[in-house]
């Protein structure tokens, strides 16, 4: 039987802003060639024409769900060049925002997973529960999606007193909900049939392909920048890195559930331990790093995001390179979908949490 080539995306309901060129033998996938680049915006070049403050909302845009985590390496790079010492309270608030963002992003991942396996409740519940954490982030930053909250030298404002109580409420509620999620979604026999043993990425292949984040940890590699190169106050907080040995779609979904649990424990600890004091340095808007180069990275909800910043002492970055986790996970799509059936393609590639805007930059 001859091979059939099918284009899935960018207008197909089961794809994101990218195209998959799928070669089929009957219903079986012979090869998948991802074709990204539909939402390329030249973020690196654009950042050379914006000053360091204007770049804050700019660098959130590639992964707007994950705004604070995307800003982490950027503010670290600028602080590194300017040799700034950020107040400890500011660092705690950064961690709280980053972990809130991780939960918000993981819940969105879960919701779309539900759409791709045809489970409408699995879409509605995470979206409804996500609202609690978005409200919390709104209380802290005043925004619901693009927070623009992390600045070089601290965070934009102090957190209100009521956040502590609300965060504990939301976390206690959501911990109970996570148990329900596991019982209703993860252990559903049909969901297990659709996800277990699908799209297996072995430990060796995962390292060879250079995937990062939850995808790497689901394949059995214990790698997390928060533990490996602790930044902000992550070394003072007690949390685990969930690792699974299976490396299939189900394991990747399970890793996301466990990470939400760890994030909530981090938020609770951070709110308990947070010291008083200022939240930012008073730079009077004068952010102009001296000439030099620096590299920084942080663990976003999709994996390691890295920034390489070169400054010539001007108002704007001389050159900025950003390496995003989705682009590194993109290569795994063609690897894990080989030999699957066409109906398994959307849930399999979504289990990598591939975010086209972030990959195209």
């Amino acid at each position, binding site marked *: 039987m001859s091979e059939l080539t099918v284009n899935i995306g960018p207008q197909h*309901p089961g794809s994101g802003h990218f195209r998959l060129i799928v070669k089929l033998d009957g219903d079986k996938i012979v090869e998948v060639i991802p074709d990204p680049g539909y939402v390329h915006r030249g973020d690196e070049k654009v950042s050379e024409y914006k000053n360091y403050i204007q770049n804050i909302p700019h660098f959130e845009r590639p992964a707007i769900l994950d705004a604070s985590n995307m800003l982490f390496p950027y503010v670290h790079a600028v602080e590194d060049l300017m040799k700034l010492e950020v107040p400890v309270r500011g660092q705690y608030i950064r961690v709280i925002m980053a972990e809130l963002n991780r939960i918000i992003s993981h819940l969105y991942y879960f919701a779309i997973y539900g759409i791709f396996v045809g489970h*409408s*409740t699995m879409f509605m519940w995470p979206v409804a529960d996500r609202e609690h954490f978005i409200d919390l982030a709104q209380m802290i930053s005043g925004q619901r999606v693009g927070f623009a909250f992390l600045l070089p030298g601290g965070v934009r404002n102090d957190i209100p007193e009521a956040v502590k109580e609300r965060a504990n409420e939301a976390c206690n509620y959501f911990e109970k909900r996570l148990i329900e999620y596991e019982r209703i979604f993860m252990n*559903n026999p049909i969901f297990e049939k659709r996800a277990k043993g699908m799209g297996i990425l072995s430990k060796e292949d995962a390292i060879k392909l250079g995937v990062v984040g939850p995808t790497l940890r689901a394949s059995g590699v214990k790698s997390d920048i928060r533990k490996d190169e602790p930044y902000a106050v992550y070394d003072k907080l007690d949390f685990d890195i969930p690792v699974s040995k299976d490396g299939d779609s189900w394991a990747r979904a399970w890793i996301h559930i466990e990470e939400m649990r760890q994030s909530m424990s981090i938020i609770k600890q951070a709110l308990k331990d947070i010291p008083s004091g200022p939240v930012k340095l008073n730079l009077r808007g004068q952010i102009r790093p001296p000439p030099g180069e620096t590299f920084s990275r942080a663990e976003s909800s999709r994996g390691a995001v890295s920034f390489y910043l070169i400054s010539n002492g001007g108002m704007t970055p001389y050159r900025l390179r950003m390496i995003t986790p989705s682009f590194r996970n993109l290569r795994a799509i063609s690897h894990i979908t080989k030999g699957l*059936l066409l109906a398994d393609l959307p849930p399999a590639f979504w289990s990598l949490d591939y975010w086209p805007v972030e990959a195209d930059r």
Partner: protein
Amino acid sequence: MSEIRTFPDFLKRLSIILGALVLLIIIIFGVLIYTIPAVSNFNDILLESIGNPIVMLDYLDSLGVGINSLFFKIAVFPGYTWAALIAAEVIWFERKFLAKMQLRVGPLYAGVIGGILQPIADVAKLIFKEMISPGKSDKLIFYSVPLLINAVGASLLAVLPVSDGWLIMRSDVSMLIVFAVIGFVPISVLLAGWASNSKFPFVGALRGLHQMIAFEVSMLIAALSVVLLSGSLDLVNIVQAQSSVWFIVLMPIGAVVFFITLLAELERIPFDLPEAESEIVMGYLTEYSSMAFGNIQLGTYIRFYALSGIFTTLFLGGWHGPQFLPAGFEIVNQVEWFTLKTLLVMVIIIILRGVNPRFRIDQLLRFGWSRLLVLAFLNLFIALLILEMNWFPFSGGI
């Protein structure tokens, strides 16, 4: 007439059309009433029946369209209007119930209680929409499929025994009629996909065909065991055979098999592969719009009601249930029990939609041909055992 620009203009146009319609009806009926001798005393009877409604009923009976007539049964009560009303309210209930399960509010504005008039609003919307068909489609087949699907659902109502005294048709082989009618469903789905001449509908139609054929065999065998125990192909006899014990107690495996095949036959989640939206958009419904789509949905939900009724008849004891109305109201009591049980089956099917994702086509076919068929034969064996050992008092009751 001037161009419609504002909402008052639209209302004016609408009132002119409606006024013309009313005038036309008055003229036609006026001519009919005063020309046909049989109905020429209609005016007198109309006036008389304001004080005494029985007069009107007797008069309608004399014309052959009264409450006891076949026409009334087919058109109104156990027949089409009743089923369509149930279908409309089940659509509303499904949306509301799923919304509650999913932490939403669901329909809210149309109607007094929780948007109960939402189906009517939807139908009004669908009627006013433009009917679009793909350029290369086979128009005749494309537009006849909605009627075919509607007719298939409605023909099942003919043999549905809502009570022992009040049913449209009693036949010695009503069970065979049911399966003959169900056999038309895959054909209508294939026709819809074929006539659309578009890729997603065609894939959806083929999936529907595979799925329905895979599950129909198990469905027939599960129903066959019921026939063996009751000793009759007549649905009324089957219900009467369950007066002491329901068949779901005797053959739980058969009931489960029949229920699962029912889900596949109705394309409900987890077997809604012909309409899997993340893979093939809307399946064979993709190209349908306006009232053609509305008719397909209505037909599907009428079939949903009718097949749930068949499940009630075969396994849940049909109309049997404690009598709680005074003597003389036996038929009302029976209809109530039948409707309650049928609605219960429908609610369970709706709950399953809220908690399950969908199967993949190869998993579904493997499940259908290897697991379900084996279970159906096992159930047939159990039925034969019960029959042979004479455990069931009614067996062989022809």
